[in-house]
């Protein structure tokens, strides 16, 4: 801390230049924060995946339904300790831009399968008992101002009601919570009771979208997957069973390899930043050779002067990085509102902050080392004579 005024003064000796450099760092880290949020949102399914959960879908397309009768047969497979199922409802609320996932599920089976989602026991019981019941994620509740006990009118883009319209109405009986930020993102959904949904829909009765299978031993996941798929081989509804993480990654990759895309963009951004900031830093130190000579004259050792130059680079990066990441955090609510729920919720988590700190330290090291080395080797007599 005692050297902070010295570092600060050195950094802002040429205010305009430093502010422009700082701006480039801010923009780079704001972009880093945003793209990390996008990557995390896409990886959320995989990150939340449980190694003991398998997903069973139709073999050739996940949009093909499977018979509900598969439930008992999957349950009987050795090593399987629980089975839930869910069907895609395809919702829109009020208008096209308000889309969010709605799943028709067997309440108890589904909630038991996903312990990362927490539901108040009274509300869980109400959901189990109420055929027209629905649970909604807390962030959705807040976003649309819903209250437990109200009617929830939702239109489906896939399933017609018995009356021939696409309009459905449910009773909102509870809230889905999650402590983990990633799980919170995945809780942006509405669960409806499949018993009512299946009875009330005009077509597709007795079918479901996919099965979620819990196994006792994750090392047996492959064997059990194969066993399940063998059960339905050569039937009209063949299955494909895979670990939940694989399924989530495969699903995300249908859109594109977001991780690789984000990494490449960020590499380009930080490479440009390295050149720009590195040049500025080198120029700044070059201009201050006599001042570094004076510090050495006064008794600052070679090591201390080297550390001061590196610390100055670090201060610049930390300052710009923190402002940039802060800007990314501040932009999240606006971005989340703008996506209208069609995109997984974006957030800048602790992981992104830690990664940003590591990147800032690495960039500071790379841009700070050459001038720091020069400062270290500087001879006082040469520095004072301006050589």
């Amino acid at each position, binding site marked *: 801390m005692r050297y902070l*005024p010295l570092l600060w003064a050195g950094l*802002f*000796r040429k205010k305009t230049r430093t502010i422009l450099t700082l701006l480039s760092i801010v923009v780079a880290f704001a972009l880093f924060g945003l793209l990390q949020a996008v990557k995390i949102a896409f990886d959320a399914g995989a990150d939340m995946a449980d190694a003991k959960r398998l997903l069973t879908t139709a073999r050739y397309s996940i949009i093909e339904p499977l018979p509900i009768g598969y439930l008992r047969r999957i349950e009987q497979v050795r090593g399987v300790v629980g089975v839930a199922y869910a069907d895609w409802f395809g919702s829109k609320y009020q208008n096209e831009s308000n889309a969010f996932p709605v799943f028709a599920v067997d309440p108890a089976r589904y909630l038991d399968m996903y312990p990362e989602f927490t539901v108040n026991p009274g509300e869980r019981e109400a959901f189990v008992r109420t055929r027209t019941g629905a649970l909604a994620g807390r962030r959705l509740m807040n976003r649309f101002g819903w209250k437990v006990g109200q009617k929830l009118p939702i239109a489906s883009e896939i399933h017609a009601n018995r009356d021939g319209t696409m309009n459905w109405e449910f009773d909102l009986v509870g809230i889905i919570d999650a402590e983990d930020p990633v799980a919170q993102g995945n809780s942006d959904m509405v669960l409806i009771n499949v018993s009512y949904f299946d009875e009330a829909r005009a077509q597709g009765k007795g079918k479901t979208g996919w099965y979620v299978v819990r196994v006792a031993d994750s090392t047996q996941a492959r064997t059990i997957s194969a066993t399940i798929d063998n059960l339905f081989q050569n039937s009209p509804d063949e299955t494909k069973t895979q670990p939940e993480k694989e399924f989530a990654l495969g699903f995300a990759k249908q859109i594109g390899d977001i991780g690789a895309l984000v990494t490449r963009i960020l590499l380009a951004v930080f490479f440009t930043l390295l050149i720009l900031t590195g040049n500025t830093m080198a120029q700044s130190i070059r201009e201050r050779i006599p001042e570094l000579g004076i510090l050495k004259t006064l008794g600052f050792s070679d090591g201390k002067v080297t550390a001061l130059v590196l610390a100055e680079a670090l201060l610049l990066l930390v300052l710009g990085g923190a402002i940039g990441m802060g800007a990314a955090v501040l932009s999240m609510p606006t971005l989340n509102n703008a996506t209208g729920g069609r995109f997984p919720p974006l957030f800048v988590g602790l992981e992104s902050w830690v990664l940003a700190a590591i990147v800032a330290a690495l960039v500071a090291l790379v841009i700070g080392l050459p001038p720091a080395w020069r400062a270290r080797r500087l001879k006082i007599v040469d520095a*004072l004579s301006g050589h």
Partner: protein
Amino acid sequence: MTPLVQIRGLTKVYHRGRERVEALHGIDLDIPEGDFVALMGPSGSGKTTLLNLIGGLDTPTEGVIVVQNRRIDQLSGGELAAWRAAHVGFVFQFYNLMPALSAQRNVELPLLLTDLPSSERKRRARIALTLVGLADRARHKPKELSGGQEQRVAIARAIVSDPTLLVCDEPTGDLDRATADEVLRLLQMLNNDHGKTVVMVTHDPLAAEYARRQVHLDKGTMTDKGVLA
């Protein structure tokens, strides 16, 4: 009594490309504690080189330099830096203040290397600035001060850690006569009243008159070592 500075057989050789330049050759010199010595001589005579060696800014090619019973010619770079911080104050022709720091912060700089807390560093810097008559300019940056004031801030920085030895390289070279006299009187006061040993390089005979003794160099050798001013 052992002199504060003892120099024996001091030689300094520089290499400029393939050219060998002998800046000092076989210098012997004693500077007693409390002395005020003016090193004089024409350009290229080696006076600044000698001053740099006495102040531990450079190391000799040959010879011995003992300051306060310690051979500084044998110290490593790190040891020499610590030695300078504790024992020597420096004043230069062009002041060499940090342009982005206030006068107060400039004076505090050498104290950053001590264990003193911030409040004590500030207090000592204020005392040093008061001693040079610039207490009211503590918050001013170098560009807001006159040349004479800048040099007085540099002197305050040189004395703030209470060194035994003050090493001054043409301290009045950039000042007008009246301001130069003020600065020289200040150095004289530090020598007379505070017992600082001052070694000053100057080419100005009027400046040299403020010293107790003049040492003349020419072409790297001493022509005399004790003309009384």
